[in-house]
């Protein structure tokens, strides 16, 4: 049995047989980690391709969504005692080379939670208007409500250290979303930081993110942020 690495990389995937192989190979070439592909019962050969390329694979019902997949990854990382947890998308938009730079920030103890942002520099990928504006609104809300400056709050490239993994894993009713993870970690006084990553246009396949889901995602996150407004409450009996 091969010994565990200190970093776990999770890749949520759904019908990505074209891109999952190159993604895993790229990661293996540039980044030292165990890879866990969380598949939402794809109809194509995603699972086989991922296994052939030497990743751990687990299938989780599609109805739990990407959120469920990430929560599963967090639980796994917590139970198996991984020091760091990284996540990237399966569509090949994130460059595995960048992960080393992001991990270095955590390893140097400059942050507990690092986000790979495509807006901090000149990235190849340009999101469409709807996505760009929704990211803008959410970023603004994050800044207004939590005083946390994040340019790319919906980035699918995030890295956590052990404390953040444990913080999320121990919360039984934790429901992951890229945005919620940010403000929850920030509220719990973890240091959240952004680093630039270059993002390529989608390499192959179709995104499961339809316009309808994009709207829903945006609505969900904004409602969530507004409902989470930190209310200063007096704690009786506690000084």
């Amino acid at each position, binding site marked *: 049995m091969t010994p565990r690495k200190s970093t776990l990389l999770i890749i949520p995937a759904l019908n990505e047989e074209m891109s999952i192989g190159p993604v895993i190979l790229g990661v293996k070439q540039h980044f030292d980690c165990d890879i866990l592909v969380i598949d939402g019962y794809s109809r194509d050969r995603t699972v086989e391709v991922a296994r052939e390329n030497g990743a751990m694979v*687990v299938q989780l019902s599609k109805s739990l969504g990407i959120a469920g997949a990430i929560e599963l990854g967090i*639980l796994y990382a917590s139970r198996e005692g991984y020091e760091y947890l990284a996540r990237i998308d399966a569509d090949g938009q994130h460059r595995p080379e960048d992960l080393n730079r992001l991990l270095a920030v955590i390893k140097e103890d400059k942050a507990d939670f690092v986000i790979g942002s495509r807006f901090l520099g000149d990235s190849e990928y340009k999101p469409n208007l709807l996505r760009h504006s929704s990211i803008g609104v959410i970023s603004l809300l994050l800044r207004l409500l939590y005083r946390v400056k994040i340019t790319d709050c919906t980035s699918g490239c995030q890295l956590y250290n052990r404390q953040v993994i444990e913080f999320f894993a121990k919360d039984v009713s934790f429901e992951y979303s890229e945005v919620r993870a940010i403000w929850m970690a920030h509220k719990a006084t973890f240091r959240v930081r952004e680093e630039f990553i270059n993002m390529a246009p989608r390499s192959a396949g179709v995104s499961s993110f339809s316009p309808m889901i994009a709207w829903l995602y945006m609505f969900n996150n904004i409602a969530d942020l507004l409902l989470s407004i930190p209310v200063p409450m007096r704690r009786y009996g506690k000084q």
Partner: protein
Amino acid sequence: MMTLLARGISIAAGLGLFFVVSFLVRRRRIYNLYAVSWFIFCLMFLVTGIFGRFTETLATILGVYYPPTAILVFALGCLLVTVMHLSMIVTQQHKDIKRLEKEMALLRILPPGQEEEKRGQFI
């Protein structure tokens, strides 16, 4: 003032509902906690039946001119509480199912080395 018949029907309905709900609770078909909102309903029927002036008093307090409407308003309020309670239960159950599904998936993950050996087996 309600007629004697109306009060009788109201009390009978309240008692009937009470027996049905307590029967279901005793048979473990409804959890005690979930029966709470139903018992509130029983109480409402019984109160309107036993205290004949209740409806008029309620109507006066609420400023409703036509007393029977007060009953509807009150019933609607009780229903809202019940539905809210059900939403909470559904959410909790959804969370539990997701948790269970994740726990099961965790059991199915094989460490890198074992992946090769187990290939082809049903896991």
